[in-house]
């Protein structure tokens, strides 16, 4: 029996808690359980860090959980918007894809191949990576239907393999979380820039099986953009038009689930790459994605099993209008794959768990580039393997040791380029590597958590980087090595009280074999490009500090980070030294009022040879405000975005090189009305 405590919380609460359980029992001492309950209810849960659910204090990584209540209150529309509110992340908007920076850095031209994005555990990234970002409109699921977002700040390849390079993001839908939902929900959003979105969800439970189908459509007419280094005049907003249609089906039964998705997204390209006509709405990128995954999770006495069977089809195509008004060229890049994963998690004794598994994917990529009657085909068949083992041992109270190792394989079985009917088989090079992980978690006392984290991320060269051929990129690079990011982190989290907490972290990064586009002839501005590994490592340092406080219906959080990335002693292009984010949410009954402020420091593009600054994008603040009202039958919300950011600037690599900067109107107002019954 716990001893009495002096009242430290409102007496009303304690008086209630003091009631004995069971009227027939003798009167008992008042128990102060309210702080324990508050502590439990405020414990974030995360499943992505170790492929099973843990509380964040026990996760062997620096993790953040974005909860549905926060996502709804702030009125984020895209996954990138939500992730941009996580310290260390920021979006890079080039109006082709919504890029995502982690630890302050975003490789220009990257299509988010360095951050693994999962939807209900299914990877949206494709090893081919021929055009998509996963965090913009091409994510597909409305954030209103997201239960929570799990973010691992740092590499996670020791379990997930390819692409879990800088960070890992797992989006868990309401359906996958098993959250109670009304049978029907729908919402319509209208906004500035001709933005409109409509989605509807039907949920049906029959015989213990719950199915949920979401249909969604989006379009915006676009906003005016200005590429002063490419064209003197601002471009017509119509040249920025974007539209998307998507569907997501999730069926959940006893120990099994099925998820299927369809998505099509089209983005006009005001940036007019590859000498096409600026402002012509015929210039466009189009992404299509189709996926299906069956998951079975049986349990034995000591082992959780998971069997996953999945298939994906990712398609990218583009079209460019020439100065004569004709289609000057287009690409069609489909990647199809089938895969399977078997995973087990065994509990050995009370303080040791082992997670083990193996995953194999089999891909076919059949790229086609057509221009002026000429056709160039690239056909690649390849497999990707991922086998992992991780142990979590608690040697004594307050200590956790997590160690793991992963073996990854990338094995091409056919690589053929066909140019004007002439076929050529290219050299096949298998790639494999071992990726370790080691974390020490120390909880010296309740509320204090210190983590020492060593991890690695890797990214195999994409098909695009290794074998792709078109009118601009013409050289196979079979000798490309995978990029490897080694991370050493120390973090300290402390709950000063049930309402106030802090988190601080220091991270050291070392990236070897970084892959980037390089002109074959540096002296020729129209030189074809190839991809190569950087001969020297990129080095990064990050220091982050965050505070969070909540009481009643008020939540306030914020943090600031300092980031230093360099290559050969010079600052890395498009890295921001300073980032900060502050959020405040006030809830009162059915109302919520939320605001967010983000700061992104100066970003520069420098000459890799001389270090001279070529392009500078100034620091800026972005403000967001949102008010939301809930009713029994639905909800209404008005959001204002980028209040001060009337001329948002971002660095852009229109054709990978050269890098320029663009300016666009980032301001937006959105109004949403939703119904549920």
């Amino acid at each position: 029996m716990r001893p009495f405590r002096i009242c430290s919380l409102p007496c009303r609460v304690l008086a209630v808690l003091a009631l004995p359980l069971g009227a027939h029992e003798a009167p008992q001492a008042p128990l102060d359980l309210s702080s324990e309950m508050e502590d439990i209810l405020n414990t974030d849960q995360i499943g992505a860090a170790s492929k099973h659910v843990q509380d964040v204090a026990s996760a062997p990584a620096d993790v953040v959980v974005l909860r549905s209540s926060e996502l709804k209150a702030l009125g984020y529309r895209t996954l990138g918007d939500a992730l941009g509110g996580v310290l260390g992340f920021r979006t890079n908007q080039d109006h082709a894809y919504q890029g995502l920076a982690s630890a302050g850095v975003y490789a220009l031209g990257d299509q988010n191949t360095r951050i693994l994005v999962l939807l209900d555990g299914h990877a949206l990234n494709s090893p081919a990576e021929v055009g998509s970002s996963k965090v913009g409109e091409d994510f597909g699921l409305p954030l209103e239907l997201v239960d929570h977002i799990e973010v691992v700040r740092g590499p996670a390849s020791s379990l997930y393999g390819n692409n879990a390079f800088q960070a890992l993001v797992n989006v868990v839908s309401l359906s996958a979380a098993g959250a109670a939902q009304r049978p029907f929900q729908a919402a319509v959003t209208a906004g500035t820039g001709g933005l409109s979105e409509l989605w509807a969800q039907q949920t049906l439970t029959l015989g213990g099986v719950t199915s949920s189908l979401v249909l969604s459509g989006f379009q915006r007419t676009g906003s005016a953009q200005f590429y002063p280094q490419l064209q003197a005049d601002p471009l017509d907003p119509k040249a920025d038009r974007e539209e998307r249609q998507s569907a997501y089906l999730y069926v959940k039964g006893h120990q099994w689930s099925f998820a299927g998705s369809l998505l099509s997204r089209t983005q006009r390209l005001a940036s007019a790459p590859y000498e096409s006509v600026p402002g012509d709405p015929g210039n466009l990128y189009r992404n299509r994605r189709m996926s299906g995954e069956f998951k079975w999770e049986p349990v034995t006495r000591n082992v959780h099993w998971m069997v996953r069977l999945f298939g994906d089809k990712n398609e990218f195509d583009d079209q460019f209008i020439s100065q004569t008004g004709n289609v000057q060229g287009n690409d069609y890049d489909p990647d199809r794959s089938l895969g399977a994963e078997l995973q087990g998690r065994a509990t050995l004794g009370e303080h040791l768990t082992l997670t083990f598994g193996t995953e194999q994917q089999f891909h076919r990529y059949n790229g086609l580039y057509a221009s002026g009657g000429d056709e160039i085909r690239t056909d690649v068949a390849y497999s990707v393997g991922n086998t992992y083992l991780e142990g979590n041992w608690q040697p004594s109270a307050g200590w956790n040791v997590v160690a793991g190792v992963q073996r990854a394989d990338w094995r091409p079985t056919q690589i053929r380029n066909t140019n004007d009917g002439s076929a050529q088989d290219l050299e096949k090079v298998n790639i494999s590597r071992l990726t370790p992980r080691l974390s020490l978690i120390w909880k010296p006392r309740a509320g204090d958590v210190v983590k020492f984290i060593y991890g690695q991320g890797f990214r195999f060269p994409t098909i695009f980087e290794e074998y792709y051929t078109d009118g601009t990129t013409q050289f196979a690079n079979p000798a490309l090595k995978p990029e490897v990011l080694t991370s050493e982190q120390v973090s300290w989290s402390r709950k000063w009280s049930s309402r106030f907490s802090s988190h601080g972290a220091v991270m050291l990064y070392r990236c070897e074999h970084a892959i980037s586009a390089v002109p074959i002839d540096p002296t020729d501005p129209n030189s074809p490009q190839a991809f190569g590994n950087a001969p020297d490592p990129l080095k990064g340092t990050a220091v982050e500090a965050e505070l969070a406080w909540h009481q009643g219906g008020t939540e306030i959080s914020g943090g600031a980070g300092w980031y230093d990335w360099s290559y050969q002693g010079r600052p890395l292009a498009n890295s921001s030294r300073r980032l900060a984010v502050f959020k405040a949410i006030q809830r009162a009954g059915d109302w919520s009022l939320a605001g967010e402020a983000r700061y992104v420091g100066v970003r520069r593009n420098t000459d890799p040879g001389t270090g001279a600054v070529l392009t500078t994008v100034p620091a800026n603040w972005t403000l967001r405000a949102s008010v939301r009202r809930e009713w029994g039958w639905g909800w209404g919300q008005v959001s204002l975005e980028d209040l001060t950011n009337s001329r948002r600037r971002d660095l852009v690599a229109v054709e990978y090189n050269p890098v320029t900067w663009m300016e666009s109107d980032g301001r937006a107002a959105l109004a949403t009305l939703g119904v549920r019954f």
Partner: protein
Amino acid sequence: MRRGIISVLPLACLSTGLLAGDLAAPTAAKFIRVILQASGGGKVNCTDKEIVGALTDLGVGIDPESKVCWVGTDKEVARLAALKKLVICPNPDWIAMGASVAVTAEGGRPAIYISLKNLGANGVTLPDSIVKISKVVK
């Protein structure tokens, strides 16, 4: 390799236990301790090894005869509820089978479901402060 998988999976179907579901074992253990404190009991009936480990770290004893039970499978719920046990489980759907309290994860954090009817049938009353933060299943 294929033969090995085929032989393992039917065995896996014979499931007799379930870990903490979509809630971490240390979090589930903390919640069980709160219920024990509220009920004046010091021990719990729990067979889940991971949760047992977390309970042991919290100084909570294990007793197969305890009135308070953590149940990881739906089959066990009805049996123990019939014995007038206070059943805590990780799935709110099992309250319909007789469980009194369910603790699960929603929106990335724990959520508590209780059945006043099932609690009353076991002669148990929880403090209002716990009831207030719980979702009451009718």
